[in-house]
């Protein structure tokens, strides 16, 4: 019996946003009577943090504290149209729509404040803490709350905004595949360290080191969540998961979480992440949306590490102990490929 250490590398890029356009998202922003802002969407939060990231985007754009913004989604009667939360389009498309809606609401807010302070709106700025002040003269200010009250109960104006973000549909050439597929690319590279048991074919991932380029980490803790959880899913895809274990044979499909295999709480792998941020020019504050791409590089990195460990190329996912063991047997034993 021997345990063989192996190390594998993979790097990827990932297209952000739905493919060929034609997929708008809309947002509405309006102020409550006392200067809190409601963002109305029909985008979906399925754990990726849509409500939270659009809230931060709206707050940043409006120039008010995040605590003063609430995102309401998704009700088709009140939230304007949105194509959906998929294809890493949420942050990009919805985020941009929210920027536009919040920018318009901000413009109205600054105008109302200018009216109260009797200055030109262009001379005003927000401090991000609920105040609007004259540039260079922080003492000459009005609160956002007072601005909203004045606008709505004195000036007769709404502090509201509308936003839509659309990349128009584009065609694909039948003969060359020429197309305009995406808005921007996120990037990642990972190194996986693992051990292979040459008697059972069992693989134990021992460590992951990674670099993920996400444009901008709009919320660093939520980025961390996506990257940790996404890498877990990548390892899971590489070594465990399928609905058809004997594909293309259709038999023995799992029907519960006991038979559909995923790494358990005891299989957690230490993961050391570096986040790189190269803002994309048309993405909201440059953020690219890390949710989908985070899993992808783990699959090949695991496969490459297994080859490095025992000399077995597993080109069929998932890489079960059986496939590894069959490979080792076909090679007449483990054939470690050296260390990197």
């Amino acid at each position, binding site marked *: 019996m021997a345990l063989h250490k192996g190390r594998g590398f993979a790097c990827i890029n990932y297209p952000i946003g739905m493919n060929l356009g034609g997929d708008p998202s809309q947002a509405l922003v309006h102020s409550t009577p006392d200067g809190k802002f409601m963002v109305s969407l029909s985008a979906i939060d399925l754990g990726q943090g849509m409500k939270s990231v659009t809230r931060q985007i709206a707050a940043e754009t409006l120039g008010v504290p995040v605590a003063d913004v609430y995102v309401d989604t998704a009700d088709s009667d009140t939230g304007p149209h949105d194509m959906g939360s998929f294809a890493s389009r949420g942050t990009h498309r919805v985020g941009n729509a929210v920027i536009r809606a919040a920018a318009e609401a901000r413009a109205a807010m600054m105008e109302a404040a200018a009216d109260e302070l009797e200055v030109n709106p262009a001379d005003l700025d927000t401090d991000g803490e609920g105040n609007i002040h004259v540039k260079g003269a922080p003492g000459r200010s009005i609160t956002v709350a007072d601005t909203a009250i004045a606008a709505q109960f004195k000036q007769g104006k709404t502090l509201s905004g509308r936003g839509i973000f659309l990349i128009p549909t584009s065609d694909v050439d039948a003969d060359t595949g020429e197309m*305009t597929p995406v808005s921007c690319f996120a990037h990642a590279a990972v190194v996986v360290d693992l051990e292979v048991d040459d008697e059972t074919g069992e693989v134990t991932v021992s460590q992951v080191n990674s*670099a993920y380029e996400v444009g901008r980490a709009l919320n660093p803790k939520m980025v961390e969540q996506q990257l940790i959880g996404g890498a877990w899913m990548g390892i899971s895809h590489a070594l465990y*998961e399928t609905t058809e274990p004997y594909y293309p044979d*259709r038999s023995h499909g799992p029907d519960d979480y006991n038979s559909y295999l995923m790494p358990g709480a005891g299989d957690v792998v230490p993961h050391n992440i570096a986040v790189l941020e190269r803002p994309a020019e048309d993405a909201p504050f440059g953020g690219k949306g890390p949710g989908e791409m985070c899993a992808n*590089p783990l699959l*090949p990195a695991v496969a490459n590490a297994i080859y490095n460990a025992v000399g077995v190329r597993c*080109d069929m996912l998932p890489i079960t102990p059986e496939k590894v063991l069959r490979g080792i047997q076909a090679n007449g034993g483990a054939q470690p490929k050296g260390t990197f």
Partner: protein
Amino acid sequence: MSSIEFRKDLFADERDDTLKEIGKPTIRQDILGHVTGRSPYFDDHLFEGLLHMRCVRSPHHHARIRSIDTSAADRMPGVRRVIRPEDVPNNLNTLLALINFGKDDEALLQGKKVAYVGEPIVAIIAETERQARDAAAVVRVDYEVLPHVLDVEEALEPNAPVVSETYPNNTFDYHELYDHQKLRFGDVEKGFAEADHIVEGRYQMSPIEQAPTETCGAIAAPETNDRFVCYTSTQALFFSLGTTAKLLDMPSSQLHFIGGTVGGGFGGKVDSLHEPLAVLGSKLTGAPVKYIFDRAEEMQVGAPRGAERWYIKDGVMNDGRIVARQFTGFFDCGAYTRLSSYAIIKGTGHLPGPYSIPNVASNVYCVYTNRTPATAMRGFGITGVDFSIECHMDKVAEAVGMNPIELRILNAYRDGDMKAHRRLAKNTALIECCQVAASKADWAISAQAAAQTSLQGGGGERAAIPETVTDQAGKIGERRRNKIPTAPGEGASAKGRVAAGTSVAPIIAVPPQRDDMIIDPARTGHRKSAAEQSPAVPSVHSAPIAPPRYTPPTPPTQAPMAPPPAAPVAQPQQQAAAVQPAAAEPYKPTEPFQKGIKRPGVSRFISGTRRR
């Protein structure tokens, strides 16, 4: 156990890190609901007299339905309604009809011919879920079992069983012309001829379940004013609403969809299978109806990430440069199209991966087989081919005896490179990711590889589109008559050439409707590197602007992160930078954005209304 560092030192001159809310570890807006169990998922809405729906499903891979006898089910205790295929007003749809992509091919309830195990035939509505299950168990369907096909390449044989009459060749029709999507860039045959090594591989990904802890479902109920409310787990509210309106032949204004709080999706909650049946059930019974997958259905009937098979052939020089790369890909889309046809477009645009390769060709097939239809999943259209490409890169590295990371850096795409889909690369960062990951793992790379950057070395010759060889092989229906090769160029009767050239302008976002919808250029968080700064553009601020190359983020107060060890030591933030955004230059977006760019203070909106 794990750690995270933010390498603020990299690309620092392209970022303005003085933003106030962006970049902060603010806790989730919805977290209090999560930890108190009060977050309203679709099933967390209580209705008096809620009815439950269960479907009768096909036990066969492929069978013609001779008859359906629901009489026993009608008489079962608690049964309020049995919905048969003919009760669905407009019983044929394809999910991407909403963006006019593909033909309607799938029934909500199948009454003619089932094409996968689990395909729904009849829906039972009863007072309890158990009653609905008991009634479903006594529905009698008379089947004529048909031959089935489960392998993507077998499905392309001339005599293969026809999975779906809508696509009788077992392949999606691309551009009303070919039975696959082509990508052609340069001449791979020429590249292979020049290459020192040819490296080939075959890769396979089996179907994968999204497995969100909340299963897919919907509750529909009659609302006032002849409308229906539908609480749903959908990932795409208006997708589901539009699909429901179409299948039920209802005006969309009659539908009130509520969702947005979903227990995980990962792509598995786009298909809109539940909302139409729940609304139809509610319409037919006048009562609230819940239709939810149990876990076994979620695992085997709910659409997975489909299987993919890829063949890759590379031509490689001794120094590691990849000079030609050819793909033949097969997406197993199961019995109906759902989203696979589109995944192939996305995947094709992704080829040949994040590398600059002068000759690229691919044929990718969306193949119908008698299994559960495939749909979206995290990494849609990309995960399978990235697995294939990156395993293949290791084979190439071995063939030429190179460090695998150095091989990637050598071939990596850079700013200004022409991609195979004929658009220029920008904002690239693959090389930096490789370097940082290698360094974190103590995986040694050469000084030369460590010195590369995505910002330089691209463009120039690498920005050109080469003369390209095309072919017309694989016209729709051709494969039914004869077995023909699936790889690019093979079996082509006629080859053509597309002249060399340069990229056309990419299609970009529609600009904001009004100037006021444009965020102040100084507040976007973007910054151009010093080299790219245009002195002609006036600053919006009077203060002298010399943006620091690195501005540390405000330290988080609640949940400190591991400090970035390789980043410069954090400097106290300068007071001036905090008050006045440091961006020296307005946001410089692509063209249509510029159309609306204004200097703050000169808004038509403001200047036109009043002046003091």
